[in-house]
């Protein structure tokens, strides 16, 4: 049981490049989340999903897109990277009446 797996762990992008942050979980959780954590700040919800085929915007969705074609995978897409998107990104999954399980994070720098 690997839990929540995020890849890559680190990435440097140039302004305007695009990339996908991968997140997969093997706990058959319906709920999945993407957060960003900026230095000295708490978690901010980007997007979340309550099940395969269903996604919804969180607090800071602009500049990001998600998809949830399977229960296991919840990739986060940055289309045109901007310096303001430099952050640490955490993916989490949650089962009914369970706490969230977090991945190890992806540290993204945009230069």
């Amino acid at each position: 049981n690997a839990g929540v797996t995020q890849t890559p762990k680190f990435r440097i992008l140039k302004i305007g490049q695009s990339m996908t942050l991968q997140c997969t979980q093997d706990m058959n959780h319906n709920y999945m989340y993407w957060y960003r954590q900026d230095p000295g700040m708490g978690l901010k919800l980007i997007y979340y999903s309550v099940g395969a085929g269903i996604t919804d915007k969180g607090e800071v969705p602009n500049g990001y897109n998600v998809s949830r074609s399977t229960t296991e995978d919840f990739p986060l897409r940055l289309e045109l990277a901007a310096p303001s998107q430099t952050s640490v990104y955490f993916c989490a999954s949650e089962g009914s009446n369970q706490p969230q399980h977090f991945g190890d994070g992806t540290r993204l720098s945009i230069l």
Partner: protein
Amino acid sequence: AQSVSQHNHHVILSEAASLELGCNYSYGGTVNLFWYVQYPGQHLQLLLKYFSGDPLVKGIKGFEAEFIKSKFSFNLRKPSVQWSDTAEYFCAVTGRETGGFKTIFGAGTRLFVKA
């Protein structure tokens, strides 16, 4: 609007001091409550949770939290902190929304314990 408020952004304590971190929430209906800890450079880990039953919840590493429904609070406590408790602590609330659950996190409290 739903929200989670953590009163202290930074707390500095000496070893063996007692700790209490405040958490208040605004959320209609039934909620589940959590405290997570994030050690430097690591991801969030669950410290303790409250779903129902005894409002005094005991977690790992000597932490406990008390759910006071009338005050919409879920404060985290530890009688005697250690240097290794230096970390950031997040309170979170999960409530049922139409179509599923939604979790809201507080902004976090950075705890620094002086050796």
